């Protein structure tokens, strides 16, 4: 383990930025979110939950896939070049890192999404333990340890020191390049880190959602959950905006659309989409998910039932709590899961 004192952090950001485009949590307009680092960036390492998840780093909200050029009866297609720039994300929390393993299951499964893979491989992820978890956090529900984040490198912020430990080869390579800035941590330091870890786990258990568990039984009763009467009650007040989908680190539905420019130039792009949108499944002959209830149900069925069925019981949720914070009408996966568990007696 290494350490680096607060006074040297600006040098650290600079050094990291030399190795690739650096993203870290920054305070902009009173809101902390991941942003590309610049000299005047106000880095915020204390806020545990950034406004959006980091998924857009690998799965961009809008991304051109290819360009067509049509002329007369001819059509030519030019694939978009894959992104090649190395990136480094610093200060990624355990929940977001766990989110990537869920996206990996989808996008890295054959046939691989090459855009996602290129970005994923070009990126070195530096995790940061959550010194101050928030009341909306429930990562422990999914056995995600906020005190030792995954990633290529994991770090801890204790008082004015950042403790640094590489976990993968990629992490070691990057660490080696920063040798001039990092000093070896002592046994004393290791104790401080351990103490913080214990503290974090303790705090998490004291939070309102600290003892929350999602029942694995849900995934075993697909039809019962699907036909549960709670959907009507829960979906009645959903506005069907897709805020929850867009901030979710695991939601991965997308749309492919064409933009027709002039003189036969066409850009085909991919953009985030949500099963909450009315046109998501709309076809010429009708819509199999006719109303709010069906669409609302789909989102939660996918996270709590279908995904676990497909991937050995893994819920498509990492407990980051962003949907709890964003929903204009305070609906969220925790309320849905609880209601379902009560309804199904599981």
């Amino acid at each position, binding site marked *: 383990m290494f350490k680096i004192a607060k006074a040297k952090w600006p040098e650290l950001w600079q050094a990291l930025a030399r190795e690739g485009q650096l993203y870290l949590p920054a305070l902009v307009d009173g809101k902390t979110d991941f942003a590309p680092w610049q000299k005047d960036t106000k880095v915020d390492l204390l806020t545990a939950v950034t406004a959006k998840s980091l998924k857009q780093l690998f799965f961009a909200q809008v991304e051109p896939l290819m360009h067509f050029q049509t002329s007369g009866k001819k059509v030519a297609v030019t694939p978009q070049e894959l992104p090649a720039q190395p990136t480094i994300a610093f200060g990624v929390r355990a929940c977001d890192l766990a989110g990537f393993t869920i996206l990996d299951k989808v996008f890295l499964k054959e046939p691989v999404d090459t855009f996602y893979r290129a970005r994923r491989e070009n990126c070195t992820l530096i995790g940061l333990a959550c010194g101050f978890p928030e*009341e909306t956090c429930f990562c422990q529900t999914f056995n995600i340890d906020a005190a030792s984040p995954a990633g290529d490198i994991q770090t801890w912020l204790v008082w004015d020191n950042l403790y640094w430990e590489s976990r993968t080869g990629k992490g070691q390579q990057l660490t080696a390049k920063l040798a001039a800035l990092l000093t070896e941590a002592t046994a004393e330091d290791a104790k401080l880190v351990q103490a913080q870890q214990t503290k974090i786990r303790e*705090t998490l258990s004291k939070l309102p959602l600290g003892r929350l568990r999602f029942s694995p039984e849900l995934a075993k009763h697909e039809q019962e959950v699907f036909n549960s009467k709670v959907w009507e009650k829960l979906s009645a007040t959903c506005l069907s*905006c897709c805020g929850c989908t867009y901030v979710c680190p695991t939601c991965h539905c997308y749309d492919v659309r064409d933009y027709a420019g002039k003189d036969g130039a066409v850009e085909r792009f991919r953009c985030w*989409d949500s099963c909450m949108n009315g046109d998501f499944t709309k076809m010429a002959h009708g819509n199999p998910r006719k109303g709010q209830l069906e669409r609302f149900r789909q989102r939660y069925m996918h996270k709590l039932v279908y995904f676990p069925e497909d991937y050995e019981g893994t819920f498509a949720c990492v407990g980051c709590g962003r949907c709890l914070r964003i929903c204009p009408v*305070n609906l969220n996966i925790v309320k849905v899961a*609880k209601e379902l568990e009560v309804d199904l007696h599981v």
Partner: protein
Amino acid sequence: MQKIAALMRQKAQELLSSGQVQQVAAWRKGQLAYDNAPAVFTSPEACADLVYDEFCPANLSKYLLAATKKKLKTAVFLKPCDTYGVNQLLKDNRVQREYVYAIGTPCQGMLDIKKIRAHGLKGITRITVSEGVVQVETVYGTQNLPQRDVLLDKCLQCKGNAYMIADTEIGEKLATPEPRGDAFAAVKRIEALPPEERFKFWQQELSKCIRCNACRDICPACSCEQCIFDNPAAPVAGKAFADPVEENMFHLIRAYHVAGRCVGCGECARVCPQGVKLGLLNLKFMKDINTFYGPYQAGSDATTPAPQVTFTQGDVEPSAAGQKGRS
């Protein structure tokens, strides 16, 4: 507030058991200190979950759209500012009066959890309000905040405690927060900037948008069956956020479509996950309408025609409007 909540529960149970209404729109207790959710109650027993406190900002008038469609007589608890929304929906003929039972509900201003968090408070376990002081208990300690500092922005422009529509009222009217200064001050500040600065401001502001459409979906004036932005043939893709011009168009046209019908409830700005200053666009239209066509408040009744569907022969010319505010 607890007293009011008890009265509300009682009223809701009464209305449901007497069969006067088929459902009641109110709020249900959440799992955190502040996450009460709008909810529809259909049985007197279910009303045990009904709550009301300083964290019930949502304007429930939009749920009347679904109630009208299903032809269900619905009792709805309305804070003074929410009553404007109901009137507007009635005026737009999107909600029918026969399905509405409006219950005026007193309010002292709602609190903004984002502002509370902005004081560095995390791990919130309990929030209590008394005598203008908000006590926030967290797993890391307790802190007191002056209530006025953590009121929602929309409450700082409170239109007062009068109900614009109510079949009955719950409890005594409460003193609402004193409005802070000129409602149009922020609009005037932008107007005073040189054009390039204004352009830059809006590009920056609107580029934050992630097209979640929450602003549209919560708005009591956005009551179309199908939004133009959900039309695949529209020049602006419904959910893509692909080009700065699209963002401009979406927000400009959305604000334009509600111009003269926007009641100024401030819900769009409240629900925006990205904190886009959406209210400014609506306020600008309100200010223009007041200046060009005389003072007008949408939703203060259900009959006065909106300024965009009426005219006078001596109206100001578009060319004059374009010149205004230029440096």
